[in-house]
């Protein structure tokens, strides 16, 4: 069965808007956008509102290939993406018009932009969903996922998470983010009430909603757990909550222990999980019973998944039905779907004597800031372009900061931070800038980031 059919077949499912209390069932909005029975690409800049969910469900019920993107993307980046991919449809409530596209009022809630002279190009039948791996650099690089990837990963997750028809689940992570999307797909298939909310966890209204609707679970990246901790989450009682999930990077040991102990003392389950967009969302989870005895572990592969470790590099390799069909960087790439491959995660790992996996390092050049991957080579290019071709060296500092090294006196640190903050949509404090006498290179002429970090 396809994803939409599985969602439509869930008798308990209802979507509710947290602020208005308005609700609909999937059937109420079926075909509500009047999409034609055709193939093509749709770029959806979606937030977590009820209307965005209506749009997503309609496109999942169609034969269109869907790209999910942040509505907060810089408009320049949006235009670049649209020029590269020339989609048939664009959903972006933030823009009054898009050049070359006709505004179509699909219904009283939704306005779509439709390509006026549809450029026909080939899309592989398996290329169903496109997700960006770097949320903010506006890179046109997407991970290609199939309908089968989405369904299989949701089924694997449902085999270990205690999702049930009586659940009330908030969509408190973005839907264009693989982890947030997996909360949506799993709960749409097997959950009960799904609460659409644009409130964040630092707004008192979010916690009032938790009480009013009786949220049964919460999902968060490490940064969300840091906020939970700061606002005294562990000192309070949440009778409706049954379980918590965490993914999107490594939670520091202090917090893992604090939340693990909180969960154990209050009869709740805390799931620490591991995954990547390239594998739809999830690859591993740590069973809650093992949380305190296997601190720091990403756990065991999800049902139907398998890990291997490359003996030469210690790279963690994953095989499973949720591994996507490679990347797309332009429209022509949509014609291919290279499924069934082994996923090289770019993370180094070890396995302990009980079969639990631990991440020990990273081979790929990115830093995770606030749960989002930031590609360091792309950032170096952005800086080079902005500052007259000068060379910069970028590296991550414990997934907390992005460190920029430069050799000249200019630009000054404030200018670099300001530029990156604007281009990447991240707070200037996420960046550190340091002037060095010279860069260090490896014998074959590549930047030696490891040695430079020690300077």
């Amino acid at each position, binding site marked *: 069965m396809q994803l939409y059919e599985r969602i439509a077949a869930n008798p308990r499912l209802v979507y509710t808007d947290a602020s208005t209390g308005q609700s609909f069932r999937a059937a109420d909005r079926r075909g509500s956008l009047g999409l034609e029975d055709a193939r093509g690409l749709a770029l959806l800049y979606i937030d977590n509102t009820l209307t965005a969910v209506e749009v997503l469900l309609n496109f999942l019920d169609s034969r269109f290939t869907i790209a999910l993107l942040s509505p*907060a993307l810089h408009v320049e980046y949006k235009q670049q993406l649209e020029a590269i991919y020339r989609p048939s449809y664009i959903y972006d409530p933030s823009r009054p018009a898009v050049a070359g596209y006709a505004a179509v009022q699909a219904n009283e809630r939704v306005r779509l932009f439709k390509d006026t002279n549809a450029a026909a190009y080939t899309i592989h039948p398996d290329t169903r969903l496109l997700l960006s791996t770097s949320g903010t650099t506006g890179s046109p690089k997407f991970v290609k996922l199939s309908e089968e990837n989405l369904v299989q990963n949701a089924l694997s997750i449902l085999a270990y998470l205690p999702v049930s028809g009586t659940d009330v689940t908030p969509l408190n992570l973005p839907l264009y983010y693989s982890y947030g999307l997996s909360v949506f797909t799993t709960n749409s298939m097997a959950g009960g009430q799904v609460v659409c909310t644009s409130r*964040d*966890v*630092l*707004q*008192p209204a979010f*916690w009032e909603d938790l009480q009013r609707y009786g949220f049964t679970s919460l999902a968060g990246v490490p*940064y969300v757990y*840091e*906020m939970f901790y*700061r*606002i*005294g989450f562990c*000192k309070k009682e949440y009778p409706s909550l049954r379980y918590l999930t965490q993914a999107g990077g490594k939670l520091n040991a202090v917090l893992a222990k604090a939340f693990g102990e909180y969960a154990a003392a209050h009869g709740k389950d805390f799931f620490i999980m591991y995954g990547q967009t390239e594998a739809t969302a999830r690859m591993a989870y740590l069973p809650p019973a093992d949380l305190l005895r296997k601190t720091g572990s990403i756990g065991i592969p999800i049902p139907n998944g398998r890990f291997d470790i490359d003996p030469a590099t210690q790279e963690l390799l994953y095989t499973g039905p949720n591994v996507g069909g490679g990347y797309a960087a332009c429209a022509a790439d949509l014609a291919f779907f290279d499924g069934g491959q082994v996923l090289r995660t770019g993370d180094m790992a070890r396995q302990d004597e009980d079969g639990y996996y631990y991440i020990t390092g990273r081979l790929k050049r990115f830093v995770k800031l*606030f749960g989002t991957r930031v590609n360091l080579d792309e950032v170096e290019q952005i800086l080079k372009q902005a500052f007259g071709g000068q060379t910069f060296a970028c590296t991550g500092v414990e997934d907390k900061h992005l460190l920029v090294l430069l050799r000249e006196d200019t630009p000054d640190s404030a200018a670099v931070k300001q530029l990156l*903050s604007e281009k990447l949509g*991240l*707070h*200037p*404090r*996420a960046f550190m800038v340091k002037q060095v006498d010279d860069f260090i290179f490896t014998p074959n002429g590549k930047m030696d980031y490891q040695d430079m970090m020690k300077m």
Partner: protein
Amino acid sequence: MHTTQQLQEIMAAALSVPVSSITDELEYQGIPEWDSVSHIYLITELEAAYNISIDTEDVLEMSSVPKVKAVLKKHNIAIN
């Protein structure tokens, strides 16, 4: 003596906006720059600047300039 200007400067730095945009009407999530990330920076910097420790409940409470001042007042910090 703590001044409004000083508070505005702390807030502007934490939220990464010009000092002129720190008005009494400004609210948490009212502008893209005042999001959860910058809010945590703001709390940390207020704690450092005034040498106080802000209670967990007050972190959520400090969602506008007047509300920030009200919480500071609880710590005997009057902003004039």
